[in-house]
C-alpha cells in the first residue's frame, strides 16, 4: 500500500501541545521548582584571552546565602575541569590555566536564591594577565599569532584541520577548459540561534539512591545521558535526563554546556537540587554559535550558460574550542553537498579550520550540518555567473537544474539524492511570483531611479542523519528507537527518543501511528524527552526527527499491526495469510465485512483467547530504525526587495517559497516550520551578526545589539508546495525543519544584489544592514564580522 493511499490520519489537525501552552501551563526548565532547590550562577571572563593568575573565592564563600563555590581547580581535582567536545577536542568546563574567549566560564556559585548567587559572583576576585588576542580568522594562522590552545600537547599554532571532498584533478581540468570562470569571496558571518528560552538545567543528585536526575534544555537527552556517564564515570542506569518543554532549540541546545556540568557537581556537593539558567548575554556570548565560514567560490561554465564545475575554499572559524556538532566523519559537516541542485561535471571543496578567541560552536541554527553555508555559496555563485553571462538568473538555473529522470542522483562529491522534480518547483515559484511581470516592474522602476530586486535561490538539503555505517556522534550511531505500547482497550503510547522544541511531535507522531493502525490521533499519546521512559536515539537536530524517529514510529506501528494479524486471525478463525489490512482493519480476503480493528484485537490479545503457538499475547513492540540514506528535501524561493539607496534600508516586500518535503503528515505544521525558517532568513540576511572588536569584545551580547526580526520586518509569506515522496522512507516523508533557514538567505541577498546592480555592486556580505548596503553603494565593502570603524 502506498503512502498516498493510507493518509487517513494525516492532515492539518490542531496540535495536542497547544492546550497547555495557550493556558501558560507548559513546563519549561525554569518552571521546575523542587523542595530545597538551590540556584547556580556562572562567573565569566571579561577578557577574551588571559592567563589566570589567581582566583580568590573567600568573600563569596562567606556570603550567608552561598552554599558552594566551585572553581576550575576544584573541578580539576575531580577530573572534570575539561570535557570532550563532539568534535574530538576538549573544552574547559571552568578555566584553570587561561581564559580563551570573552564570556568563558571561570567559577560557579551555588546559593539559596537567584539573586544571591548573582551577588556572590561579584565577590569572587580573579587576577588575570591579559594576552594578545586573535578574533579575525584570516589572521589566526599568521606567524606570531597568539597560540590559543597551548593546553594541547605540542600545539604551536591555531590550525585545527584541513579537509577536502570531491575530485580536485577533475575539477581543475573542467576549469581549465571552461569558457567562463567567475569567483567571489564571501563570508557567512557568525550568527546565533538565540532560542527565546535560554539554556538551563535542574540537577538533582540523590545521595541515597545514587540516582542523578537532570532536567535540561537538551535536544538530545539520550546522547547527553551517555556522555554524562562516559565523562563523569557515572553509571548510566542511574542517570535520568529529562527534556521538558523546550522553548526553541535550533541547534543551540544540542551540546552539553559547562553550566550543566557545574550544576550537577553543585548538586552532588550540596546534596540538594541545583538550578542554573543562563541569562541572554550568557546565551549569546558563550553557547553554540553558527556559521563563521569565510568562503571563496569559483564556478566554471560554457559561454551559453551550462555550468561545468564548482570549487570552494573555506576558512572556518571554530572559536576557542572545536565544539562543532556533526557526524564524526565529517569535520565540515555536510558542506560538501555544495554542488546544490545542479547537474555539473566536477567539484572540489577544501576546508581549513582555525581557533580564534571566540566562543565555541559552529554547527547550529537550523543549518543541516552546514548545508546552509553550502547552499549560500552555490546560490550566490549562480547569480554572479548569471551577471557575468548577462543571463536571467532564473533561466540559468532552469538550464542547469537536475532533471527528474536523473534521480536517484549521485553528486560529484558523493551524495545520493533520493528523489526530486526541481524544474517543476522552480516553475511553480516563478508562476506564483509572476516572475515576468516582476521583471517588467523592475525595469520600469529602474528608469525612475527606484531600486527593486528579485532574488532566486534553489536548494537541496540532506537531512535525517543518518545511516549508522557512515554517521555517528562521539561513537554513537545515528539510528533511533521507538516503542509502542497498545493498551487492552486499544489506546496507544508511543515512546520516541527525539525531543520536540516546538515542532509538534506529540501531534505528528501520533498521526503516523494512528494512520498505520486505523486509530484516531487522539488515542495515541507520544512520550518523548525522558530517558527513563523512551528507547535510545540521538535526538532532534538536523531535521532528523521525521526522517529517522518518524520512520521508527511508522515501522514500530507496522510491527504491531503484523502482531495484530495473528490475533485477528485467531479471532476470525482464519489463517493469517488470508487476512489483508484495509481501511484500518484486518479483513478476511474476499469477505471484507469479516474484520477486526486494533481496539478489539488489543483486548483479545490481552484476554484468554487461544493464540497460535509462538504468539504470546499483547501487541507491544519496539524497533530500531537505521536509515538507509538521508532524505533530500528541496525548494525554490523568490524574494522581492525594495532598497532605499539614500539610506541603505532594505524592505522585503514579498517572499515566495515552494517547498517539497515529500509526503506531509500535517501540512499545517509543515507550513509553520517553513514560516519560521523564512523569518530566520530575514534575520541572517539583513540583521543578525555576532561581530567582535579588535580587542575581542563580543558586539552581539544582547538583543539590543543582536537584532532579531520582528513582525514588521517580515512580509506575509507566500507558500507553495510540490510533493515528491522519498522512495526509501517508510511513509515517503522528508525533513522540513530547516529547509527555509537553509534556502532563504541567498534568495534575500540575491534580491538585494539584484537591486544594487545599477550601482555595479556584485556582492556584499550579510547582514545587509543599512550601513552595509549604503557602503556597498559607495563602492566600499565592509567586513561585517569585525567592528565597523
Amino acid at each position, binding site marked *: 500500500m502506498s503512502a498516498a493511499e493510507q493518509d487517513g490520519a494525516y492532515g492539518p489537525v490542531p496540535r495536542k501541545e497547544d492546550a497547555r501552552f495557550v493556558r501558560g501551563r507548559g513546563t519549561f526548565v525554569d518552571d521546575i521548582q523542587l523542595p530545597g532547590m538551590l540556584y547556580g550562577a556562572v562567573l565569566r571572563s571579561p577578557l577574551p584571552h588571559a592567563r589566570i593568575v589567581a582566583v580568590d573565592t573567600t568573600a563569596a564563600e562567606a556570603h550567608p546565602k552561598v552554599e558552594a563555590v566551585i572553581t576550575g581547580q576544584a573541578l580539576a581535582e575531580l577530573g572534570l575541569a575539561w570535557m570532550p567536545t563532539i568534535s574530538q577536542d576538549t573544552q574547559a568546563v571552568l578555566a584553570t590555566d587561561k581564559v580563551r574567549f570573552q564570556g568563558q566560564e571561570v567559577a560557579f556559585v551555588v546559593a539559596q536564591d537567584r539573586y544571591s548567587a548573582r551577588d556572590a559572583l561579584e565577590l569572587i576576585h580573579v587576577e588575570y594577565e591579559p594576552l594578545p588576542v586573535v578574533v579575525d580568522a584570516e589572521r589566526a594562522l599568521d606567524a606570531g599569532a597568539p597560540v590559543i590552545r597551548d593546553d594541547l600537547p605540542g600545539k604551536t599554532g591555531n590550525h585545527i584541520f584541513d579537509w577536502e571532498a570531491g575530485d580536485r584533478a577533475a575539477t581543475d581540468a573542467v576549469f581549465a577548459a571552461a569558457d567562463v570562470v567567475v569567483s567571489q569571496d564571501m563570508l557567512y558571518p557568525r550568527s546565533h540561534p538565540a532560542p527565546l528560552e535560554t539554556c538551563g538545567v535542574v540537577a538533582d543528585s540523590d545521595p541515597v539512591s545514587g540516582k542523578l536526575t537532570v532536567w535540561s534544555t537538551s535536544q538530545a537527552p539520550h546522547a547527553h545521558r551517555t556522555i554524562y556517564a562516559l565523562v563523569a564515570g557515572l553509571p548510566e542506569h542511574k542517570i535520568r535526563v529529562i527534556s521538558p518543554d523546550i522553548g526553541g532549540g535550533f541547534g543551540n541546545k544540542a551540546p552539553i554546556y559547562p553550566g550543566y556540568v557545574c550544576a550537577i557537581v553543585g548538586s552532588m556537593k550540596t546534596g540538594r537540587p541545583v538550578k542554573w539558567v543562563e541569562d*541572554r548575554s550568557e546565551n549569546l556570548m558563550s553557547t553554540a554559535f553558527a556559521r563563521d565560514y569565510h568562503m571563496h567560490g569559483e564556478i566554471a561554465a560554457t559561454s551559453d550558460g551550462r555550468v561545468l564545475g564548482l570549487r570552494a575554499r573555506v576558512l572556518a572559524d571554530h572559536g576557542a574550542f572545536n565544539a562543532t556538532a556533526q557526524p564524526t566523519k565529517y569535520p565540515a559537516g555536510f558542506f560538501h553537498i555544495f554542488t546544490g541542485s545542479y547537474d555539473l561535471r566536477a567539484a572540489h571543496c577544501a576546508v581549513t579550520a582555525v581557533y580564534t578567541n571566540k566562543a565555541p560552536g559552529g554547527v547550529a541554527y537550523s543549518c543541516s550540518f552546514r548545508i546552509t553555508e553550502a547552499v549560500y555559496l552555490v546560490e550566490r555563485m549562480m547569480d554572479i555567473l548569471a551577471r557575468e553571462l548577462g543571463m536571467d538568473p532564473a533561466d540559468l538555473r532552469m538550464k542547469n537544474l537536475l532533471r527528474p529522470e536523473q534521480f536517484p542522483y549521485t553528486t560529484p562529491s558523493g551524495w545520493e539524492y533520493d528523489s526530486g522534480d526541481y524544474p517543476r518547483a522552480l516553475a511553480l515559484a516563478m508562476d506564483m511570483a509572476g516572475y515576468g511581470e516582476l521583471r517588467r516592474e523592475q525595469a520600469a522602476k529602474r528608469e525612475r531611479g527606484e531600486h527593486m530586486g528579485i532574488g532566486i535561490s534553489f536548494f537541496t538539503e540532506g537531512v535525517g542523519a543518518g545511516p549508522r555505517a557512515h554517521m555517528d556522534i562521539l561513537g554513537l550511531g545515528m539510528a533511533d528507537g521507538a516503542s509502542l505500547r497498545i493498551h487492552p482497550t486499544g489506546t496507544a503510547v508511543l515512546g520516541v527518543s527525539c525531543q520536540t522544541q516546538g515542532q509538534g511531535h506529540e501531534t505528528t507522531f501520533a498521526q503516523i501511528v494512528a494512520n498505520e493502525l486505523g486509530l484516531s490521533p487522539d488515542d495515541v499519546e507520544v512520550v518523548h524527552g525522558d530517558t527513563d521512559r523512551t528507547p535510545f536515539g540521538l535526538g532532534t537536530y538536523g531535521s532528523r526527527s521525521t526522517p529517522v524517529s518518524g520512520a521508527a514510529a511508522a515501522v514500530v506501528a507496522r510491527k504491531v499491526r503484523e502482531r495484530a494479524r495473528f490475533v485477528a486471525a485467531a479471532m476470525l478463525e482464519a489463517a493469517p495469510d488470508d487476512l489483508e489490512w484495509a481501511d484500518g482493519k484486518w479483513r478476511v480476503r474476499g469477505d471484507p465485512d469479516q474484520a477486526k480493528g486494533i481496539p478489539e484485537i488489543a483486548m483479545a490479545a490481552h484476554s484468554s483467547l487461544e493464540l497460535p503457538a509462538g504468539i504470546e499475547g499483547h501487541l507491544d513492540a519496539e524497533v530500531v530504525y537505521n536509515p538507509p540514506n538521508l532524505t533530500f528535501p528541496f525548494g525554490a524561493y523568490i524574494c522581492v526587495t525594495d532598497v532605499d539607496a539614500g539610506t541603505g534600508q532594505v524592505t522585503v516586500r514579498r517572499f515566495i517559497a515552494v517547498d517539497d518535503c515529500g509526503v506531509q503528515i500535517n501540512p499545517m505544521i509543515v507550513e509553520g516550520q517553513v514560516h*519560521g525558517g523564512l523569518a530566520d532568513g530575514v534575520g541572517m540576511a539583513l540583521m543578525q551578526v555576532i561581530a567582535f572588536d579588535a580587542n575581542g569584545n563580543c558586539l552581539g551580547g*544582547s538583543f539590543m545589539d543582536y537584532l532579531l526580526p520582528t513582525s514588521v520586518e517580515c512580509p506575509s509569506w507566500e507558500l507553495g508546495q510540490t510533493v515528491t515522496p522519498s522512495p526509501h522512507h517508510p511513509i515517503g516523508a522528508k525533513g522540513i525543519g530547516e529547509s527555509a533557514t537553509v534556502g532563504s538567505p541567498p534568495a534575500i541577498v540575491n534580491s538585494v544584489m539584484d537591486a544594487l546592480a545599477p550601482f555595479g555592486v556584485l556582492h556584499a556580505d550579510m547582514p545587509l544592514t543599512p550601513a552595509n548596503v549604503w557602503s556597498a553603494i559607495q563602492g566600499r565593502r565592509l567586513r561585517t564580522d569585525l567592528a565597523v570603524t
Partner: protein
Amino acid sequence: MQITVTVNGTAFTHEVEPRLLLIHFLRDQLGLTGSHWGCDTSNCGACVVWLDELPVKSCTVLAAMADGRRVLTVEGMEQRGRLDPVQEGFARCHGLQCGFCTPGMMLTARWLLDHNPDPSPEQIREALSGQVCRCTGYENIVRSVRWAAEHQGSDGHGGHRSASGGAG
C-alpha cells in the same frame, strides 16, 4: 518590604526585596510560570503581562512598582472554563510552536483587540512589533489575532476587560 498585588483577581501580600523584578515575583513567589523570561532588556516580550490596563515587560518592572495595582497574566485569560478567543485563535491557527513567546503575544493581542476590535494585519504587526517569536515567522500569529477578532463572543466573552481578570 511588603507589597500587595492583585494578580488575576486575587490579592497577594508578600515580603519582597526592593530589587525583585515583577517577572520573578510572579514566577518564583506566586508560582505563575506562564509568563516567561527571555532577555532582560525589554526586547523580546516573553514576559509581557498587564499592569492595570497596560501590557508591560515584567522583566524591567520592579515587583514593588506593582504594589497596590492589578496584574493580568496568561493564567487569568481563561474565564469560567472558557478560553479567551485570542487563546483559541492561537491554537486554531497554529500561532505557536515552542510556546515560549505565546503568553506575552496573547496578552498584547488581547489589549489590541480591546482597543481596536477589527485590526488590519498591518495594525496587528505593529502592535506586536515589540515582541519576538523565533518559531512562527509571525504569519500565523497575525492570522490567530485576526481569528480572535472575527470570533469575539456576542455575550461579551473576550471583550473589553481590565487587569483584574474579571473576578476581582
